C-alpha cells in the first residue's frame, strides 16, 4: 500500500490534535522512525502547552460588569429610546452644532420637501459624523448587505455612490429615522478623516425632479436635489465649491437612466 507522504501541515495538525485517527497513527509511526522531526514536533507541542498555560488565568477571572451579556442585551433594547432622546434634545436646543436651522423650519416642510430632507441630513451628520465608535451600522466591507437592506426598507433600489474619484472612501451606512419614514445614510471619509454624509429617501411627490440647491447650516454645508422622486443630499464640513463636484458625481451615479 502506498502511503501518502507526511507533510509539514500534518505535523502541525498532529500537534493541534486535528488529524483523523488513521492519519494520526501514520504520523505517529513516521515520528517513531524520524527522531529529529519528532524532537521538533515535541518542541512545538511544549510551546503550545506553555502558551495555553500562560493565558489560562484570564479565563478564570470573574467577568467585569460591563461584559455581562444580559445587561448588554437589555441596554440594546432600550437604545432606540436613547436615539430619540438625542434627537429630541437637538430639536429643543435648536442650535447645537447645527445652528442656522430654526424650530420653525424644522417643523415646516418647504414647498417641495427638499428643505426637510436637508435638515434630516444635517441632523444625521450632527449625530453620526462625530461618532468615533460606531458612525455606521453596516460597514463598507458588507456593502452588498447594506444595499439590500436599505433598498428593502426604502422600497426602492438604492445605489451606494462610489466617491473614490473624489478621494472619499465609503465607510458604510445605516438606516435613519425621519418624519417622512426611513432614509438611507451613507458615510464617507478621506485620508484626513474628513467625513461626508449622503442621505437619500423617497419624496412625497414621487415624480419630483429639482435642480441642485446649496444649503448650509452653521459649519455643515452641502447640496440637496431630487431625481425621479428620490431626494438626495450631500453634507459635510467643507466649503461649497469643494462639495459641488462631489454632489455632481453622486447625481451622475444615482440618476435613473
Amino acid at each position, binding site marked *: 500500500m502506498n502511503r501518502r507522504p507526511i507533510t*509539514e*501541515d500534518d505535523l*502541525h*495538525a498532529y*500537534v*493541534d490534535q*486535528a488529524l483523523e485517527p488513521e492519519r494520526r497513527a501514520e504520523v505517529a509511526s513516521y515520528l517513531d522512525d524520524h527522531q529529529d522531526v519528532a524532537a*521538533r514536533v515535541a*518542541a*512545538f507541542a511544549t*510551546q*503550545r502547552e*506553555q*502558551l*495555553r*498555560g*500562560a*493565558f489560562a*488565568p*484570564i*479565563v*478564570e*477571572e470573574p*467577568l*467585569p460588569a*460591563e*461584559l455581562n*451579556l*444580559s445587561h*448588554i*442585551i437589555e441596554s*440594546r433594547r432600550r437604545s432606540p429610546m436613547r436615539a430619540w432622546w438625542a434627537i429630541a434634545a437637538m430639536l429643543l436646543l435648536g442650535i447645537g452644532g447645527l445652528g442656522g436651522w430654526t424650530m420653525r423650519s424644522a417643523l415646516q416642510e418647504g414647498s417641495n420637501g427638499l428643505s426637510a430632507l436637508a435638515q434630516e441630513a444635517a441632523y444625521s451628520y450632527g449625530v453620526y459624523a462625530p461618532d468615533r*465608535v460606531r458612525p455606521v*451600522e453596516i460597514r463598507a466591507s458588507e456593502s452588498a*448587505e447594506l444595499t439590500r437592506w436599505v433598498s428593502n426598507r426604502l422600497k426602492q433600489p438604492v445605489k451606494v455612490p462610489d466617491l473614490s474619484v473624489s478621494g472619499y472612501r465609503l465607510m458604510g451606512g445605516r438606516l435613519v429615522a425621519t418624519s417622512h419614514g426611513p432614509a438611507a445614510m451613507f458615510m464617507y471619509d478621506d485620508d484626513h478623516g474628513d467625513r461626508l454624509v449622503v442621505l437619500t429617501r423617497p419624496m412625497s411627490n414621487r415624480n419630483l425632479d429639482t435642480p441642485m440647491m446649496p444649503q448650509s447650516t452653521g459649519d455643515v454645508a452641502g447640496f440637496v436635489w431630487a431625481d425621479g422622486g428620490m431626494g438626495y443630499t450631500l453634507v459635510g464640513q467643507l466649503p461649497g465649491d469643494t462639495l459641488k463636484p462631489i454632489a455632481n458625481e453622486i447625481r451622475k451615479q444615482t440618476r435613473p437612466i
Partner: protein
Amino acid sequence: MKDMLVQVEPLIPALRRYARALLRDRAAADDLVQDCLERAVSHWHQRRDGSVRAWLFSILHNLAVTQFRKATARGRHMPIDDAGERELVSAAAQEQRLIYQDVLKKLERLPEEQRAVLLLVAVEDLSYADAAGVLKIPVGTVMSRLSRARERLLQEVEGVAPGNVVALRGVK
C-alpha cells in the same frame, strides 16, 4: 435572545483571553470585547450558519485590526509594558512563572499576523478552516503562518532585543 445568551455567554472568557493576548492591556481588551458583544447582540440575526465561536472571533478580530490601524495612523503604539504579563503569570506556580514569562515575551516579538494565527489555533482551539475565516485568508496561508510562527518561537534566543531579531530575520 435567550438562545443568544446560551450560546454566547460561555465564550466570553475566551474572547477576553484572545483580546488580551492581542492588545496586552486589560482595560483596552475588555473594551474591545464589550464592543464585540454589542455587535454580536445587534447582528445576531444576521450571522450565517456555522460556528458561533468562529463568528464571535471574527467580529473581535476585525475590531482589533481596526484599532491597530487607528493606533498606527496616530503614530502611537500599543502598550508594550510588561504589567499585563506579570499580572498574567502571577497566578502560576513559581517554577512555571519564568517559563510563561519567556514564552509571552517571545510571542510578543512575532509579527502581528503570525501571532494571531498561533493564538487562534493553539490557544483558542479554532479549526484551521475557522481560523482562515476569522482572518479572511486561505487555509494554506494559515498553515504557512502557523509554521513560521512556531519555527520562529523555537529559534528565538532568550534576551535578544527585538531590533536584532528584525535585522537577523528581516530577509525572507
